[in-house]
């Protein structure tokens, strides 16, 4: 995987004040699945994104708790109500202590 931990965000170029827009957030990450042997799960410290926090203008608006049953390179489309021009930040946390961040600037017209 090229450049694991890279975060890509997509927001509309400009949003009308008060309307709801959608953010697409993706992180390059293996999102390991649980291995099975003889019908039983193999014990080890699986590496996957288990928490995603989305903040807009410094306030938490959405939080996600993905499991290993989310596909590799997890991506989420998340709504937000555009009230002011400012930063929309997404932080992905994984089970090995990894923390991957991305920020997009929301332009409110």
């Amino acid at each position, binding site marked *: 995987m090229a450049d694991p931990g890279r975060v890509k965000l997509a927001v509309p170029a400009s949003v009308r004040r008060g309307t709801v827009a959608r953010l697409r957030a993706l992180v390059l990450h293996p999102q390991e699945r649980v291995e099975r042997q003889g019908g039983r799960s193999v014990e080890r410290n699986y590496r996957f994104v288990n928490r995603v926090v989305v903040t807009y203008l410094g306030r938490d608006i959405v939080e996600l708790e993905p499991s290993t*049953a989310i596909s590799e390179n997890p991506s989420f*489309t998340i709504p937000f109500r555009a009230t002011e021009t400012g930063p929309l930040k997404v932080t992905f946390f994984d089970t090995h202590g990894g923390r991957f961040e991305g920020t997009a600037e929301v332009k409110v017209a």
Partner: protein
Amino acid sequence: MSRGLTRRAWLGLATLGVVGAGVRPRIAAAQGHLANLAPEEPIAATLRRLFADRPIKDGAALIAIEMPLIAEDGGSVPIAVEVKSPMTPESHVKAIYILAEKNPRPLNVKMSLTPAAGQAFVATNLRLADSGPVRVVAEMSDGTVLMAAREVRVTVAGCAA
């Protein structure tokens, strides 16, 4: 047998909590062990664990699930969920759960929302172990729990979690 530690020393360590639980500290960087994952269980047990005895009502009128009827690759099945809600502080969707009935660990993802989201929507890609229903549960701010489902046929299993 070597006598590296006397009986007295062992007792001392035990009282300090070094022996036993103390040797396995739970640090933030080791959350991926099976003990920290949701248990392998049927979906009924997951629903009971999440919502206890709260009644789960039919949410088909309020929950829209967009998914392909046939998923060629169970390793990545797109889903989009929208729950109709005014998303005001008085009345909003608090959480959306996506569960795959045929996965050994049914909960794919939990999303917690605030009214600032403006809409109760989420889209992502799921791993599905087998053909079967994908269920979406919405927990409303007044405590109501609603559920809807979509049947998906999986051609190649995603060996999901």
